[in-house]
Structures are given as C-alpha cells and as structure tokens.
C-alpha cells in the first residue's frame, strides 16, 4: 500500500510538465545515439553531465536515465538492417536479426525489437520498484568464485552458438579468449601483447572486433556478387513491415526470459548487458522447439537479446539506488552526477530522497511508452533503407562502421584494427567459422580470468573454492547441463537412426 502511495507521488513528480519534457528529451536523444553505432549511452550521458548538473537532481536523473534506456531501443536498428552492432549488447541481435532482414523480414524484426524493448523495459522498472533491496542483497553474495561460475555458464553458450561444427566454434572462441588477454594485466601491472602501443594498454575494444567481424566481414563477403541491383527484398504494404500475430506468439517466452535474465545480470556489478544478451539467446535456443532454425532468422532470436538488453537498465539501477554502488559504465556517470549535485547515493538514498527514486521509477514507465510510440512508426521507414542497391548500401555500411569505431575513443588505431578484424571476419566466413563465439570469448575472457585469479588469491591457491561455495556450485551444475545437453540430443538422434536402420 505504501508502495502505491509512493508510486502515485512519483507520478505526480514525473508528470510535471518540465519533467515530462526532460524525459522526452532524454529518450529522444537516447534513441538517436542508440541508432548510431559506436557512440553509446555512457558517452552521451557524459556529454550532458554539465547540463544535467545545472538542473535539479530529479529532472536531471530523469533525463539521463532516459538516454540510458532510450539508447537500448535504438541499438538493434543497425544490427538488424546492416549487421553493424550498434552497441555491445546488440551483437547477438545480429545473428537472427540480419538474417530476418535478408529474408525480407526487416520490418517485423525491427518491430519485435521495439516491442521486446518495451515489454522488458517495463518489466525491468516493475522489478526495480518491487524487489530492489532484496535483490541487491542477493547480488552481494556474488564474489569472485560465483562470477567465475557465471562466466563459465556464459562461455558454455558456445555450444548453442555453434553452427555445423563444434570444433570451429571452439577455435573461434579461443581466439576471442586470447584477444581478451591483450592489455595491461591488473594484478601484476605488466603489459601483454601490447607491442609497445599505448593504445593497446586497455586491450582490444570489443566494439572494434564486433563491427569488424560482423559488418565489414559481411560487406567484403558480398563484394563478389555485384550483378543484382537491390540486395534485399523489401515487401510492399505496411502489413508486411510489422510483426504479425504469429511473431508475437513465437516471442512470448523470449520476452519473459530476456526480461528476467537481463534484470538479474544487470544487478551484478561485475557482469553487464552483453553477457545478459548472450545468455538469454542461449536459453531461448535451448528450450526452443526449433533450435535448428536459430541463426537463420527466427523472431525469438531477436526478441530475447533485445529484451535482456533493455531490462538490464532497470537491474543496473538497483545497486546504484540501494547501495550506492555503480553496476555499469553509465551508472558510474549517474553516480558522478549525484556527487556533483551534492548528493551521495548510498543505502539511504530512497529513504532520504524518495522524490528522486519514485520520480525516476514513474518517469521510466512513461519513458518506455514514449519510446514505443517513437520507435514503432520508424520501423517501416528504416526498412526502406534496404531498398538501396548494393553499391550504395555497402559503402554506407563501411562508412558507418569506421565512423562508429572511431567515435568510441577517437583513436586512429581502432580504424586499422577494424579493417584487420574485417578481413578476419571475411576469412572466417569463407571457411565457415562462426564469429559469435569469438565475441563471446572476448567479452567473457577478461572477466573470467579476473574472477578465477581473484578466487585463487582468496583461497591461497586452493582450487576447490571454485566449486565448494553453494551458489557457485549451482551455476556450475547449470553449465554442465548446457554442455551435456547437445550430447544427449545427438545420442537420441543416433539411436533413432540406428533403430530405423534395424527396423
């Protein structure tokens, strides 16, 4: 009951005309930066930090959060249309999203991404409102051994991402794991594979590898067939540009799966939305009745990662609001904004400044509706981009990719690297190696290495710490289940085959 009163007061705050306007400005800007690859929400929130600190804290946090979750909506656009991951969490969206576009279903893919974003964004806020304090307490139980188990679980998704050959998928993943070691090692402060380049001290940027292997690789692979004018089919009629009832029905479970995975992974300060999107995609494929169709353009393969990516925002706000701990790059900037306002977010923020927390929660409900209204009409318009002939479309993808990677840190080296990874992506395509496991290895490798080394330091080298803590053990058992799952399926298939032959 108290919550209802609080929420009503929150809406009273969020519905003030000025706050509504700031909310709209936030989500509008968020949508735009989300669509542009490279420039992510954290960079945009940072750009607006000086403006926000001149505003009152409630309006400021409403606007900045609007950018944060708004950017998640737009992130899928270039993934689906151009195979250019708009941001790190949208890599998984490329897998089925771009295939849908290739099959002439770009509109439904974009539409389902917007709907998944809306549903998950809303579920994320509901969870933020209802369970923030207990979930934050639970997340604290995640220490290095639990993170190690979680990363192992994430890596096990490789068996679900593998196409025809498991061996190729594993090799691709190992290259990713190796790439993750580039940079300064935090534990000893020594340089690894940096070749004396200061630019490599922080490692190979994930966006560079993702855009290179996905977008540039795709363009290069298509340069050979220039006989056709238009590369993609774009069906006529608005009806074919929107998801149909069957699409929504197929995505029902994905909406829920993505929302829950995204939220809970988002709460953990050491994880992130990229992991959430991979895990939700993996779960979706594992429980699907048509796992063999994943990667050829199934709608739930778009819905799950997009949902995860959006409810992660609600999750990431949990530790910030309840413990004063930033759980992601963007929430770290929100924390800075609080400090510049002279507020110190800590465990008592909600109690001491209810108008900020509840105003934010209410504004997020409103903002998500605004985003849906803002994004759905754009779908048919964006889908028209694919009508462009190849000789326009491909150079455009190249341009967007190069500008995208440069805009992240303004480093020339990144443009060379994107070219290198583009060639790598091209070669991998030619010899049929999947690129997704490479990305998976790169994202998780660093986190997993840190977790295992931290764990072993905690136990003074006793490896049993990794599997004796209950929570870690549970996650490791889940990991084993994922790894063994396909074996069972193979055995079953083989047995039916044998049975058929005997009969």
């Amino acid at each position: 009951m108290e919550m209802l009163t609080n929420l009503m007061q929150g809406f009273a705050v969020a519905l003030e005309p000025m706050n509504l306007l700031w909310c709209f400005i936030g989500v509008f800007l968020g949508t735009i930066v989300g669509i542009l690859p490279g420039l992510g929400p954290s960079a945009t929130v940072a750009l607006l930090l000086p403006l926000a600190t001149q505003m009152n804290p409630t309006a400021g946090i409403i606007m900045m959060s609007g950018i944060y979750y708004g950017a998640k909506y737009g992130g899928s656009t270039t993934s689906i249309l151009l195979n250019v991951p708009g941001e790190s969490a949208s890599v998984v969206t490329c897998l089925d999203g771009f295939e849908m576009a290739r099959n002439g279903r770009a509109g439904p893919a974009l539409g389902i991404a917007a709907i998944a974003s809306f549903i998950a964004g809303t579920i994320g806020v509901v969870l933020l409102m209802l369970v923030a304090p207990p979930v934050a307490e639970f997340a604290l139980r995640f220490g290095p051994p639990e993170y190690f188990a979680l990363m192992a679980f994430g890596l096990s998704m490789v068996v679900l991402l593998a196409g025809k050959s498991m061996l190729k998928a594993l090799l691709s993943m190992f290259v990713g794991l190796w790439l993750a070691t580039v940079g300064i090692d935090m534990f000893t402060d020594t340089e690894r594979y940096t070749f004396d380049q200061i630019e490599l001290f922080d490692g190979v940027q994930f966006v560079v590898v993702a855009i290179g292997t996905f977008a540039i690789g795709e363009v290069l692979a298509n340069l050979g067939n220039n006989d056709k004018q238009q590369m993609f089919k774009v069906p006529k009629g608005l009806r074919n540009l929107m998801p149909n009832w069957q699409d929504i029905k197929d995505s029902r479970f994905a909406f829920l799966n993505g929302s829950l995975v995204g939220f809970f992974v988002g709460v953990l300060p050491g994880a992130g939305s990229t992991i959430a999107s991979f895990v939700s995609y993996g779960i979706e494929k594992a429980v699907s009745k048509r796992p063999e169709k994943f990667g050829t353009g199934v709608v739930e393969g778009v819905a799950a990662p997009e949902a995860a990516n959006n409810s992660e925002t609600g999750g990431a706000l949990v530790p910030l609001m309840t413990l004063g701990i930033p759980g992601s790059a963007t929430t770290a900037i929100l924390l800075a904004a609080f400090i510049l306002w002279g507020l110190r977010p800590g465990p008592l923020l909600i109690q001491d400044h209810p108008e900020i927390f509840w105003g934010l929660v209410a504004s997020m409900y409103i903002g998500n509706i605004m985003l849906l209204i803002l994004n759905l009409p754009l779908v048919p318009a964006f889908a028209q981009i694919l009508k462009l002939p190849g000789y326009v479309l491909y150079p455009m993808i190249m341009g967007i990719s190069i500008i995208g990677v440069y805009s992240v840190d303004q480093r020339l080296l990144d443009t060379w690297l994107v070219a290198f990874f583009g060639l790598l992506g091209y070669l991998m395509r030619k010899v049929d190696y999947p690129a997704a496991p490479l990305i998976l290895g790169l994202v998780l490798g660093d986190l997993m290495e840190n977790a295992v080394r931290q764990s072993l330091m905690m136990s003074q080298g006793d490896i049993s710490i990794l599997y004796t803590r209950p929570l870690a053990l549970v996650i490791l058992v889940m990991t084993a289940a994922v790894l063994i799952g396909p074996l069972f399926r193979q055995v079953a298939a083989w047995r039916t085959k044998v049975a058929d032959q005997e009969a």
Partner: protein
Amino acid sequence: MKNTLRLLAVSMMAGAAVVSAPVHAFTPERPLEFMVHTGPGAGSDVFARAVQGLLGKTKLVSQTIQVSNKAGGGGLVAMSYLGEKKGENHLVAVFTGVWFVNPQIRSNAKFTMSDLTPIARLILEPAVMTVRADSPYKTAKDFFDAAKANPGKLKQSGGSISGRDNTIRQLLMKASGADWQFISMKSGGERVAALLGGHVDMFVMEPSEAEEQIKAGKIRVLATLMEKRIPSMPNIPTINEQGFKVPEVPQARGFVGPPGMSADAKAYYVDVLTKLHATKDWADFIKENRYEDGFLTGPALDKFVSEYTQTLRGILKDAGVKLVR
C-alpha cells in the same frame, strides 16, 4: 606610425585606469580545456567538472571551459598528449597519483611530472580503513593481529597493484608487520560490493562514501589514515593514534600544464586557482566531499612533486612492481 603611438598611449591610460584589478600578461583568448586521464564519472573527471562548475559560478574565468576525456593506457594517453602540446597555454590537465607512478613503471611513458608544468595542488582525499559492520575487528590492531595469526588469510579489495589501495596496504603492512592478500578488481563498484558481500575483510574507502554506508549500518571504520582526525568523523582515532606509524599518502589532485607553458600563463592559472581557493563556494565543496584542503603552489608544490615521486617509488619497490627509471 602616429596612430599606433596614439593607440599605445590610450591603451596605457586604459591600463592605468584599471590598475586595481590584477593585469595579466596572459588572458585566455579561446575556451580553456581541462583534460582528464579517465573516462567520465571517475574521480578526476568529477573533480574537473566540479572545478569547471565553480569557476563558471564565481566568474573567475572569462572564457568557457571544456572538460575533455583522454582515457586509456592507464593514464599514459593523457600524459603523452599533454607532453606533446609543448608551449600550449590553453590546456591544463588534472593530475593524480597515477601521474607520478606511470613514468616509473612504464617504459613507454615519455614524460615525468617534472617535465610538465605543475600549476597547483588543490585537494587531498583522505582515506579510511573499513570493515563490514558485523566484522569481529573493532580497531586497526584487531585486524592486524588477526592477519598475523592467519598469515595470508585476510583479504583487502582494491584496484591495480600500482594503485592507491595497494600503496596504503604496503604502508600498513610495513607499520604493523602483518601480511594479507590484495585482490585486484576492475571497478570501484565491484570493490565495495566485495566488502559488503563479505568476500573480502577490509577495504579502503573515501570518507564521504563511508559515511553513507555507516549511516545505513553496513560498515565500520577501523581507523582514519590521515595525520589529524577527520572532522566529520571526530570519534574515530587515526592510525597513528592507534600506535602504528604510517606516513600520510592521501590521493592528491591538482592541475598541471604542458611542458614549456609560458610563465605568464602559469601565473594566470595560479592566480585564478588561488582566488577560487579563497571563495566560500570552494570551502563548501571541500567540506561537502570531506576532502582536505591541499592547496600548494610555487616552490612548495615543486617540493611536493619530487617528494611524492620518491615516496611512491619506495612503496612501489616494496610492492614488487618493476621500476623502469
């Protein structure tokens, strides 16, 4: 020629008329750039933006100020960038401990702090030694005794081994003769979460952050790590009061210019920051964030730069970090 002379005379008279206001040989002609070596949201970034805001509010600078983030290479990207802008008068950077450490441990660091133009040290960020509220340790001695009784069992979370948390650990270990583990974690969020979740036993926090956690009953402060007690925590004894001689190595922040910045330009920044330092807004900023006033310029600053470099050098050596120069 005649006109020029007349103009000169007029301008000299104009100069004489406003003689009460200090006349700088340098006044900025275009926007000033405050560069930080971290991404947005990190300590130096917040500091730069706070100074930017206060200078705007107090109207001490006629031009606008932009904060630019040159993150990467653990601060080396920013240091190299500054080092290569020789003689540039419109660019200054926020320095912090890592600016002293980097040239000592990275072979490809091209500039040391004394190659650059230190302008002013502004604040010192005190640190406090914290444990979880339900921890059995009530004083620093309790913690050290437990660490001695179980060598290598106790754990502290922190950043990289050349960072400030480990610097403090080295000093505490030296003073107490105890030994405990240092667990590096990437983000500040993870480090605090590791303490609150009970995965590590001790964490070094800033007072302003600690106060919020104390109010909520999540943590306890064992000792403060400055020479004098921290005003906002008057009941908590310093580490020296508890019988352990630990030199004060607070995180220092201030501004540094490129090599060969003109003496006039340096004087201008020193003047602006001295004036800012005297305002009530600045005093409030320091108090609100529980910083300590660390204002230093001129020869005192130069002395600090060389001493701080040497202090950190000794600590890095003790920590087993490879030194390159």
